[in-house]
């Protein structure tokens, strides 16, 4: 059975049930807010992995697509009064298109060159966002989005549902024939071309999917914050996502998503410690890169399953 592993399915459904039960246990909007943020990070890290983990093309500008989605939804709402729900539909289209456009010239580049090109692309977007403040609101961002759900817990359920479905969809994609082809592309492009595979079309399409899910997460996040801020376009966010993917284990989709969920929660918890937050991030990354090849989450889960079996 290549598609469904029973243990994996049961455990992920149990995790979903646990997360779905949270609003029943607490009505604390702060807790729900943290979870919404963490789920957005999970979508971002999972979508990063879709392209970068499978093909080994490490995207250092994922924030470009997150920010584009957030700003698209925010702009439609604040400028034209279009409901946030439509924004959540449009955002992935905008980000996906951007992904294809940026992928077209950059996906030919190898290793570090692709990383730099995407990093620079997002830096250009970030700088433009600040320069074109008349449209984007500059440092302040676009605020005053009208909430789409009556209560925080309603919105939490929306984000949880979309998040779970997105990550499951991406995982299934990674397990499908297309995922296999992408891993082959990551290993050796020339062999794939000789095997009649249109390598460029595969990479660009996947980049568009990856960007679209990032934009979806961006719109959901803006809908929670009721603001699209320039931080969502920053290199800092891109790098945070790469760190999460490394910790989770690249190419597994669920690994980066789970790592993102936990790291976002830990960081939120560490907010009390203020300035030590990023230091902890840096140290975790240092340890992960130095000591592991496949991160923590995926190897740990395999080990656990081995013990249970």
């Amino acid at each position, binding site marked *: 059975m290549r598609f469904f592993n029973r243990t994996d399915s049961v455990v992920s459904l149990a995790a979903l049930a646990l997360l779905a039960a949270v609003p029943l246990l607490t009505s604390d909007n702060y807790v729900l807010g943290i979870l919404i943020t963490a789920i957005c990070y999970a979508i971002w890290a999972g979508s990063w992995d879709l392209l970068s983990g499978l093909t080994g093309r*490490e995207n250092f500008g994922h924030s470009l697509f997150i920010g584009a989605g957030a700003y698209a939804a925010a702009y439609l709402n604040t400028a034209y009064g279009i409901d946030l729900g439509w924004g959540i539909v449009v955002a992935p289209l905008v980000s996906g298109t951007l992904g294809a456009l940026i992928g077209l*010239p*950059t996906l030919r*580049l190898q*290793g*570090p*060159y692709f*990383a*730099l*090109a995407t990093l*620079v*692309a997002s*830096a*250009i977007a970030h*700088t*433009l966002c*600040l*320069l074109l403040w008349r449209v984007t609101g500059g440092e302040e961002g676009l605020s005053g989005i009208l909430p789409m759900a009556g209560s925080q817990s309603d919105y939490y359920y929306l984000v949880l549902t979309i998040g779970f479905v997105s990550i499951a969809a991406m995982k299934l994609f990674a397990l499908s024939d297309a995922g296999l082809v992408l891993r082959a592309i990551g290993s050796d492009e020339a062999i794939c071309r000789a095997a009649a595979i249109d390598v460029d079309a595969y990479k660009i399409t996947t980049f568009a999917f990856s960007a679209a899910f990032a934009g979806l997460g961006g719109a959901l996040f803006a809908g929670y914050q009721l603001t699209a801020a320039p931080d969502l376009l920053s290199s800092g966010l891109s*790098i945070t996502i*790469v*760190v999460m993917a*490394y910790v989770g284990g690249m190419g597994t989709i669920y690994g980066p998503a789970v790592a993102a969920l936990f790291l976002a929660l830990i960081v939120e918890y560490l907010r009390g410690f203020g*300035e*030590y937050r*990023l*230091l902890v*991030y*840096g*140290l975790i*990354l*240092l340890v992960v*890169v*130095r000591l592991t090849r496949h991160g923590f989450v995926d190897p740990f889960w395999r080990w656990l399953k081995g013990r249970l079996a």
Partner: protein
Amino acid sequence: MAEILLYGAASSASYALMAVGFTLVFGVARVLNLAHGAFYACGAYAMYGFCAAFGAAPAIAVLAAIAVLAAVGAIVNRFFVEPLRARPMAVLMSTLALSIVAEQTLLITFGSQSRNIPLILDGPVSLLGVRIGAQGLLLIAVAIVVIGALWLFLHKAKLGKAIYATSQDPVGAQLVGIRTSTVFAVVFAVSAAMAALSAAIVGPMQTVSPEMGLMPMIKAFSVVIVGGLGSIGGSIAAALLLGYSETIVSYLVSTEWAQIVSLVAVFVTLVVRPSGLFGK
């Protein structure tokens, strides 16, 4: 015109000092060192430390900061780069992590408020009818001397030739008895020392703060990409190109748009000619 000429030269000089060290590490050790900006910030704080704690004269403090960072560079190479050499992306991540740790450590130790470090040369001077800080002229002179010395070292000195040989063919270099691990350590030390030197001279003209390394590193990146990764001559040419075009755009439009100019230049270069405008 004279203003553009001088200010352009000063900013080109600061870009070149950072970029040449950065590209040296890439050219020889095949490592993209994302901690280069952290070297820059640490260099400025080392100088701050020597001045504030020991009351050292600025010129002495600069030398001390350079020495400290050279050692730091070699240590970073030994413990955070060497063990991961076979995996280029892992090296990238490792040096990225180091730069985050370094920046945050500076932030926690010294706080986020900016510090001042003293000028080595005080006071404005008049040149070509322009009043420019003496430190700015020092920057231009130091860049020319240091990069010239590096060039001589790489082409004339025995160790320098070994470094050059390693950059051309690491396996071959090892076969003829060059200890490449020593070469890599030296290259990292030189690169970090140049970042510290740049910070110690540029730092007093701007502000010293924990995140001060980021912009210079992005600039170094830009210069190195446009010039061609690993090419010292290309870096110098690209430093002049970007330094002057930014200065000109700043004068004609605004400083913010000048930033976009170099970013767009980098993106276009990467896409159209990843080997750089002046690369092979």
